[in-house]
């Protein structure tokens, strides 16, 4: 059985979503299985049209900082979040949505990009996978 990586995506910040998706894609590329658990502000990014809407975790500066970082990322030819997510799914990565977050924030399944989500669950699903994972992160 391949080794597993399990990541909780709690932050909705753009830079942290990059970290989560880059690590997840790297793990898949190196032959691991990967599950991403989207919860709290992270789950906001799975709303329709929401992937790119997060602020920078530092120096957001009312959007100016984010704009500058995006310019620099484009210059460095960094892949978009949308592309990283499409690659993640193509390489067989799993996405789980936290149901409690959906209750708290009033998010309905139809508000989310349901085509990307493999399952809806709670902490038990995360622990069941995390305890068998070689790598587990909270981002």
């Amino acid at each position, binding site marked *: 059985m391949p080794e597993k990586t399990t990541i909780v995506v709690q932050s909705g910040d753009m830079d942290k979503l990059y970290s989560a998706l880059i690590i997840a894609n790297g793990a898949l590329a190196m032959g691991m299985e990967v599950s991403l658990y989207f919860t709290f502000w992270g789950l906001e990014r799975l709303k329709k049209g929401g992937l790119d809407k997060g602020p920078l975790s530092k120096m957001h500066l009312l959007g100016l900082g984010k704009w500058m970082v995006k310019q620099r990322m484009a210059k460095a030819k960094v892949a978009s979040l949308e592309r990283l997510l499409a690659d993640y799914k193509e*390489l067989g990565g799993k996405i789980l949505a936290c149901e409690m977050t959906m209750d708290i924030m009033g998010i309905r399944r139809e508000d989310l990009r349901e085509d990307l989500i493999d399952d809806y669950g709670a902490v038990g699903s995360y622990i069941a996978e995390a305890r068998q994972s070689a790598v587990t992160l909270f981002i």
Partner: protein
Amino acid sequence: MAEIKVDVRGETCPVPLVETRKALRRAAPGDVIEIVGTHPASKKEIPMAAEALRLELLSVEGEDTAWVIRIRR
């Protein structure tokens, strides 16, 4: 047996690794995948991925900023 080319020149982390993996998934056992790239870290990391996937690394040639890697699926 086919030879599959992957051109990731100008691409940065994690694209060279991801495109290599995508090509390997599409390839048949015995096929050779040739990756051409310019991202320095990937020159080290694609061979690490080949090892993790237990695939045969045929060659790594060129400089850190212009390299060719060949892997047999």
